[in-house]
């Protein structure tokens, strides 16, 4: 534990943090550029089918669209730092508030997905590693390959078709907040969570297997074995504990990936989260909302990856010094 407070770690964290901020600046520029290159006049679309030239000009200057692009960018970046991401073109709601309103739904979906994934991937990956080369290992590996190859929206539709439309056990879509209606929340989160979780499980199983294999072949485990400790003891104490951190880093990576990949699942399940928000905003050419959502998702992505990298460095000193 002493090593945690030694300077190399802090220096590494500091460097990574700085580096992340640079990347974040790049993200900001890219998000801004992307959205402002969209063809189609957002002011015209926001005003609908009929409007006066005065109304057009008014909205245009109110949105700041008549100022030079560079100026628009810096003003946007400046307010973004204070948490103000502008207002939606469609309903005038502040973007930040809308994003924060939709965040819990996506987060709960991501967490449920990861939990389901872990519930499946941990036992499967460990079993597969420990029974390497046997038939059960092969079955697990092929199944996980299969899982990686399934489009998530297809799985979602099939799950809905079977469990919701045909059997009627679960609702076809929608969301209930956890705090006001826990039972409803659970019923509604199962199918989307399964969709996200099964695919993530397929990916994670392989990495868990690899992580366990790497640890199992490590010297100290072989030493423990040669000391005559029972295989079960070796398994539970050494392998699992030492594979834990790599597995945590995998979980972190998957969590970040899920955050970006939930768009399609949220659309299919009418899940009121960030992904569906981005999709609707793109369809409606709601610039400020698209910008804000992309920025938020990319920032979360960066943040999680930063934490993963730091965790990984804690484990593997070689990375720290690179």
């Amino acid at each position, binding site marked *: 534990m002493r090593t945690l407070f030694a300077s190399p770690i802090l220096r590494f964290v500091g460097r990574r943090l700085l580096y992340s901020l640079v990347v974040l600046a*790049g993200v900001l520029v890219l998000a801004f550029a992307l959205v402002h290159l969209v063809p189609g006049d957002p002011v015209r679309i926001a005003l609908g089918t009929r409007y006066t030239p005065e109304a057009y000009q008014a909205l245009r200057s109110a949105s700041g669209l008549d100022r030079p692009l560079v100026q628009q960018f810096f003003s946007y970046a400046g307010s973004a730092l204070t948490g103000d991401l502008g207002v939606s073109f469609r309903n005038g709601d502040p973007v930040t508030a809308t994003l924060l309103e939709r965040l819990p739904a996506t987060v709960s979906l991501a967490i449920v997905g990861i939990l389901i994934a872990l519930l499946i991937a941990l036992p499967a990956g460990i079993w597969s590693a420990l029974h390497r080369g046997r038939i059960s290992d092969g079955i697990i590996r092929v199944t996980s390959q299969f899982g990686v190859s399934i489009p998530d929206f297809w799985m979602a539709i099939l799950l809905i078709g079977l469990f919701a439309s045909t059997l009627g056990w679960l609702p076809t879509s929608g969301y209930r907040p956890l705090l006001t209606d826990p039972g409803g929340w659970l019923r509604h989160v199962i199918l989307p969570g399964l969709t996200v979780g099964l695919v993530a499980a397929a990916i994670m199983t392989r990495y868990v297997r*690899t992580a366990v294999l790497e640890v199992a072949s490590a010297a100290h485990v072989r030493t423990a074995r040669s000391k005559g400790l029972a295989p079960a003891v070796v398994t539970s104490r050494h392998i699992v504990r030492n594979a834990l951190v790599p597995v945590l880093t995998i979980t972190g*990576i998957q969590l970040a990936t899920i955050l970006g990949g939930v*768009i399609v699942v949220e659309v299919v399940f009418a899940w009121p989260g960030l992904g569906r928000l981005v999709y609707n905003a793109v369809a409606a050419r709601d610039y400020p909302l698209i910008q804000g959502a992309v920025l938020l998702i990319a920032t979360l992505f960066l943040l999680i990856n930063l934490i993963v*990298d730091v965790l990984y460095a804690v484990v593997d000193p070689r990375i720290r010094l690179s």
Partner: protein
Amino acid sequence: MTDMPSGDNLRVSSWRLLLANPLTLASGVVLIAVAIAAGTARWIAPSGINDVDVPNALQPPSGAHWFGTDELGRDILSRVLVAMQASLQVSVVSVAFAVVVGVTVGVVAGYRGGWADIVFMRVVDVMFAFPVLLLALAIVAILGPGMTTTMLAIGIVFTPIFARVARASTLSVRTEPYVAVSRTMGTGHGFILSRHVLPNIAGPLIVQTSLSLAFAILSEAALSFLGLGIQPPHPSLGRMIFDSQGFVTLAWWMAVFPGAAIVVIVLAFNLLGDGLRDVLDPKQRTLAEARRNR
């Protein structure tokens, strides 16, 4: 899966090893079959892809229509074949784009180092900060939906990974002593690149290509599903799955066959990639790869 040292003088044994793995072999065969079917799609398709025949809509699979008919009476088998062709087209073109641009960037960055390295890799890092689908969505939103823009979007989004793979391999070669010796002897950069660097990156590159092809097919399907990819009436697997939503209880075949087609192709590419990896680049099967490739 035994560990094999990489090296082109072991190519013969590599092939044998590749073929010995039944899964890899099977995937290869499947992909060849798929390629043939897709390539000849319009000729072997039993019906037109847009032969609307509303009185015969929503027919289950039968002798006349092996995969059944959709809500407009169109033959699903024909549409799946042509859609597969489009999917493969999009994936191959976009991955080719990503390989060409990404490898160039990665090799230059890894070989020259210095400013080129810093700038290119920071740009790559910024692109990595965006989840894949989100970035592709944004690009397609800018350029407008359609097959060409989908190719471009997926190509752009996949470039960073090839850049990283190429750079990593280039770096590992560049620091080899025999390269430094070559340079002091006056050997040109071009010679070093073609003799030492490219063969070294070939292995990981081939593996990544196969895996990226798999992911490209999934990405194209997702974009088409969202209405931003290949536009109707040209069939696309993702769009066919989207259209099947309203008919899940009435016509399960509308959802099952296009989805199965995707799974078969993607699975084949994935298994092939895995098999290739075991032979060409066993070092990659580690956690480090997971972090790098995200």
